[in-house]
């Protein structure tokens, strides 16, 4: 009994908290210190004269303009995809869901050059009929999963997927002898992609959208499905419940997803270089400008451009933080 009492007494003797706090502080200082040193090294390398010179350079001005426009377009596109896809992944249980969930992250995990190379091959090496064939196969596999999956009486989903598969298969037959590449077809309707400014957006999109989808899924996960259930008991269809009850609650998530996509697009380099190229005044964005300046042996110019990128990234972060702290929607 005395032994038990002695053991119990030990519980009340609190160990000091400072070793743990010291550990937290060490990790925080190490990481934040590294980030600050990186930024500081950039700032110290840049001369104001060099910064003024690059900002007056018309090619760099074009590059800044294309960066802002392409990042904004990519962010908007990413949000358009992330809002529904994040909801699908957050709310629905179906066979193949884990596969789809993993597939979303693939662009993030792939080496950036591989993303660019894949786009280049898709647009310039794969014929339309081959593309339709791959899609038809994918739709039929998805329809099979949906049919034998847990979607219950919702036969409309496998039916629609199978129908899309049939359309694609019909496309293969109709385009049997067609050797046109996607780039040729899109170029024919005035939407050239490869080594074109539009290609910059497409090169930025896969990774940026992956981040946006992940952010939106997390936002939806934080909203209880009970809201939709109650809304549906009041007469809403699933889509109406999403629009009227869920979407207003994930406003901050949408902004966060857009910001994440914008910031990610700003830093994109490999896929742009491979798919859109780095042609001065045409497909050059800030990340490729830095690369071009380094290639020309102009380290000071590259550092000045890096500073511009850091300024843009911090500015967008502060703007969004400001917007979120002022409320917006929950």
């Amino acid at each position, binding site marked *: 009994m005395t032994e038990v009492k002695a053991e119990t007494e030990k519980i009340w003797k609190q160990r000091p908290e400072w070793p743990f706090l010291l550990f937290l502080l060490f990790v925080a200082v190490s990481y934040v210190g590294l980030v600050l040193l990186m930024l500081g090294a950039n700032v110290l390398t840049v001369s104001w004269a060099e910064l003024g010179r690059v900002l007056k350079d018309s090619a760099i001005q074009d590059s800044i303009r294309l960066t802002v426009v392409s990042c904004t377009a990519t962010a908007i596109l990413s949000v358009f995809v992330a809002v529904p896809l994040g909801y699908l992944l957050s709310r629905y249980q179906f066979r193949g869901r884990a596969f789809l969930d993993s597939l979303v992250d693939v662009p993030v995990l792939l080496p950036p050059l591989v993303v660019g190379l894949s786009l280049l091959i898709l647009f310039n090496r794969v014929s339309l009929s081959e593309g339709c064939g791959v899609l038809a196969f994918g739709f039929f596999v998805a329809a099979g999963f949906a049919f034998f999956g847990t979607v219950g009486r919702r036969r409309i989903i496998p039916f629609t997927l199978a129908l899309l598969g049939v359309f694609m298969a019909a496309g293969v037959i109709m385009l049997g002898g067609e050797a046109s590449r996607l780039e040729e077809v899109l170029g024919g309707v005035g939407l050239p992609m490869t080594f074109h400014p539009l290609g910059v957006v497409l090169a930025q999109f896969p990774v940026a959208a992956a981040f946006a989808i992940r952010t939106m899924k997390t936002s939806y996960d934080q909203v209880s499905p*009970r809201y939709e259930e109650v809304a*549906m008991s*009041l007469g809403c269809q699933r889509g*109406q419940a999403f629009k009227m009850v869920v979407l*207003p609650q994930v406003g901050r998530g949408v902004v966060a997803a857009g910001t994440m996509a914008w910031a990610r697009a700003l830093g994109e380099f490999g896929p742009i270089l491979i798919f859109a190229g780095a042609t001065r005044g045409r497909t050059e964005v800030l990340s490729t400008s830095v690369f071009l300046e380094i290639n020309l042996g102009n380290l000071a110019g590259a550092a000045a451009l890096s500073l511009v990128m850091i300024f843009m990234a911090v500015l967008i972060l502060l703007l969004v933080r400001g917007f979120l702290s002022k409320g917006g929607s929950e």
Partner: protein
Amino acid sequence: MSDFLRVENLGIKVGEFSLDGFSLAVGEGECVSLMGPSGCGKSTVVEAICGLRGQWLRSGTMVLNGVDITHAAAGARGIGLVPQDVVLFPSLTVREHLEFGPRLRGWKRGLIKERVENLAEGLGLESLLGRLPEGLSGGEARRVALGRAMALCPRLLCLDEALSGLDEERYEEVLAMMGQVMKEEKMTTLHVTHSRAEAEVLGDRICQMVPV
């Protein structure tokens, strides 16, 4: 009294929990209080009747006002639910909560206004109509949830422990108000509770669920 709601041999399976052979009949305009120990499946039954647990349903039939609703969509059943966890929509004001169902159903504006005013008066919500759910007291939130469920004049009102968690003073106040409004509206009601006193005040009949 003819059966307005008839539930027969309901079988539900959720993970390890299963319920078999549950049957219940509620007459038109009647309020039946469903009682039973925690975990016996009262809320699950109510949510199944409301059409929210279709994926868990294993057997049985549900008929409301002569129509088989066993596989009907939740919104097509004409059932108003006041859930245990209240679940008010954070971005909507109290007025928008009361208007929610009627607006969805395309009621005329004048009719919606009249209905909202009547409900707000009956439930003592007039001064709260412009407020968001954030900051409402537990009693106020429950009255809003009741008003939201009743606004559409549902065929059946389901109260799932709608008064749980209220302090004694608020409990008496909300209970009295609820009883009054339900009497005035003559709604057929299925009322789940732990409290025998509450069941005796609101219910015309008490059904006891026994875990098997």
